[in-house]
């Protein structure tokens, strides 16, 4: 009888395992974007585009799986087996892996594809938002099908981090496919990644299947689906019920803790270094043109409130760039004398009185309905109310918000963005005079720093070109202190990339610490 039982048990086990092997394994990931923008790396914006792009494409050399660590010694080769930077930091040579195949029979990846990608990204006719990352390139030399050298106009030891890292348009594209598919390439991409594109249903989902010729070995799951679930309530419910294996988080105070409480198997995938949250003060507007008023605002902001609201999801910030960014200020770098970013409501009120506002003042601003913007402004609004500054807020639609702040229409601008994890990148985007909104070269300088209060362009440029690491870091910290003394913006605690997955159904293969959806499912398996 015992033997019979064991035979039955064995047969049952065989049946079950056979069933499991036959079943198509699918991983479902819910993103917060309403719909796909583009899967063409030249046009992808936001996590909902970046995550699919990361599955389909590869970079030459990128950070280790699941990280955003761009330190030279920690990089891992993707399409390039090895690479060298010239000692003067003005040229980079990449040696390509042999035999890497494009999806759907578009042939082998060669140096010509790399040259094509860079030319395409540089060409103004392409119309990519990432063109400026490639501006410094003077020549791309193809030595042989597997060797390519990129030459720069000025020394830039971080060129690879600006231009060639995942997320900032640095993915290598197929010359043949881009030319053949034209505009269709946006929603019908051909890459080299672990998953190849199968289908796209607008506002519903994108489906991918495992690429069996993937250079790093065929993925363990057969199908990957990316679902567009913009409503936080719906996305949360889909995750808690187990309909999706992974979701992009929400930026609402207490939300993560609430999900973990409802679903204890949840694994939080907090990517760091985090994104940038900043509250920019338009210094062309009264009374924000007065340094005393700006200092009063800074002294009214208590960073600890964010920690109380968001917990581990945010980390404190000490300068302009979040912790973990190259050149970021640490707690010890914060000047001791008269630093504006110290919570001191009494001083704030005194400064307001000095500036002629003993009873505070009212100011109008508008903000997008998006959670990460609105939640922050609601917290700031309440903190400023305590010192007598009343913010009259108008909530507007996200796209028109982005248009209007770039037309210099707002007085105080909440901005949430991802940048390459380098202090230089943050400075260039927000504090260079050429980046001031309203100028043709505008980027995201909403405060008008550079034209008003102070100008740090020369120091920034000097830091960009400095080849010595220690000197460069010291200069970057010096620029941050110089800028912040004028209080053109209030840097807010930095949010981690917020994803979470079901620990019972999904194993990603490595801890996810990369930000902005730049991690692959190449090593993922269903449990």
């Amino acid at each position, binding site marked *: 009888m015992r033997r019979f039982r064991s035979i039955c048990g064995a047969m049952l086990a065989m049946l079950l395992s056979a069933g499991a092997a036959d079943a198509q394994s699918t991983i479902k990931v819910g993103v917060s974007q309403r719909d796909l923008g583009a899967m063409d790396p030249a046009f992808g914006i936001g996590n909902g585009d970046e995550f699919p792009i990361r599955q389909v494409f590869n970079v030459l050399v990128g950070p280790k799986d699941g990280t955003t660590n761009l330190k030279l010694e920690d990089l891992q080769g993707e399409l390039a087996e090895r690479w060298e930077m010239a000692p003067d930091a003005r040229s980079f040579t990449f040696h390509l892996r042999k035999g890497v195949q494009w999806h759907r029979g578009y042939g082998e990846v060669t140096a010509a594809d790399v040259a094509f990608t860079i030319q395409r990204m540089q060409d103004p006719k392409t119309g990519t938002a990432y063109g400026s990352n490639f501006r410094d390139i003077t020549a791309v030399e193809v030595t042989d099908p597997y060797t390519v050298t990129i030459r720069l106009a000025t020394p830039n030891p971080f060129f690879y981090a600006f231009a060639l890292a995942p997320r900032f348009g640095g993915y290598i594209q197929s010359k043949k496919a881009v030319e053949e598919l034209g505009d269709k390439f946006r929603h019908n991409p051909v890459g080299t990644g672990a998953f190849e594109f199968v289908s796209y249903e607008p506002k519903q989902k994108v489906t991918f299947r495992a690429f069996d010729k993937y250079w790093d070995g065929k993925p363990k799951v057969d199908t990957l689906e990316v679902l567009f679930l913009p409503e936080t309530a719906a996305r949360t419910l889909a995750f808690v019920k187990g309909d999706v294996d992974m979701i992009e988080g929400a930026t609402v105070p207490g*939300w993560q803790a609430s999900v973990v409480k409802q679903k204890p198997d949840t694994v939080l995938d907090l990517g760091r270094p985090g994104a940038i949250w900043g509250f920019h003060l338009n210094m062309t507007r009264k009374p924000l043109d007065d340094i005393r008023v700006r200092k009063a605002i800074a002294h009214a902001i208590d960073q600890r409130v964010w920690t109380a609201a968001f917990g581990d999801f945010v980390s404190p910030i000490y300068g302009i760039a979040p912790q973990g960014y190259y050149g970021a200020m640490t707690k010890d770098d914060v000047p001791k004398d008269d630093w504006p970013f110290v919570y001191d409501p009494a001083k704030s009120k005194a400064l307001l009185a000095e500036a002629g506002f003993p009873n505070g003042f009212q100011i109008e601003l508008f903000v997008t309905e998006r*959670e990460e913007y609105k939640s922050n402004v609601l917290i700031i609004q*309440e903190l400023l109310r305590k010192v007598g500054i009343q913010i009259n807020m108008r*909530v507007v639609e996200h796209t028109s918000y982005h248009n209007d702040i770039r037309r210099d229409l707002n007085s105080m601008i909440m901005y949430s963005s991802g940048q390459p994890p380098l202090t230089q990148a943050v400075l260039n985007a927000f504090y260079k005079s050429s980046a001031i909104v309203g100028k043709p070269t505008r980027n995201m300088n909403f405060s008008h720093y550079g034209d008003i209060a102070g100008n740090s362009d020369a120091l920034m440029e000097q830091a960009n070109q400095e080849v010595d690491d220690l000197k460069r870091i010291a200069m970057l910290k010096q620029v941050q202190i110089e800028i912040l003394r004028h209080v053109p913006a209030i840097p807010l605690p930095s949010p981690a990339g917020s994803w979470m997955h079901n620990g019972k159904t999904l194993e990603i293969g490595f801890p996810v610490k990369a930000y902005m959806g730049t991690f692959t499912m190449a090593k993922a398996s269903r449990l």
Partner: protein
Amino acid sequence: MKYLMANKLTAVGAALCVLLIAVAALSPWIAPQDPLEQSFLTANQGPSEDHWLGTDAFGRDVLSRVLIGSRVSLSIGIIAPLLSALFGVWAGMIAGYLGGWTDRLLSRFSDLLMSFPSLLLGVMVAAALGPSFESAVIAIAVALFPRFVRLSRSATQVLKREPFIDASIASGRGTVSIMLKHVLPNIAGPLVVALSLWIATAIRLEAALSFLGLGAQPPTPSWGNMIRDGMTDLVGDPWPAAFAGAAITLAVLAFNMVGDALRDMLDPEIDT
């Protein structure tokens, strides 16, 4: 009045309306806490001794927010239909009394507005004006306008055939004077009924506009925007949305009960 009191349901409805309006008027004094005060240490909590209706994601007291929120919801709910009536009733009387091309013009215009569902019309107007308290009032007033036009026009048309109107004309009274002295008092009954019912509609519309982000702007609480904000974590912390929803239901029910009772009283032809 006797009829009103004889009906228990009506009495309850009327009492509720009075209570709601009193609460809205006195809310700054009776709210137990500052409805804007954030406290993340006690965020997302259910009802407790300190917070009778719990707290929201920002740790704000839900009871205080529901009480203060009633000011926005009820004031828009009452002001908007009154504003709408002010214009709509006149337009309807003019159309009904004068007839001819004036009538055709005004009627076609109100038909045009009528062809949009009132919520859609409200959303269009509020979106065009930009989100605020005032634009919510205007949006709802516009949405209800054609209903007042129709009602007062048809009542006026019926009334116009009465001999005493002819008598007034014969005695040399001016048009405006006839409308004020004879037409308005005689069509007031159905208008009052409609007004009380449409207050309930306006409260619902305000909640819908606020839910869509087109009503009162944060941090000012209104019942609609409380539901909207509560949606994000509906499963984890359902309290803000649930209590705001309950408040809307209560208010709509109360005004509808009064409206129904007034109709029964003023419109004897309808047999209930």
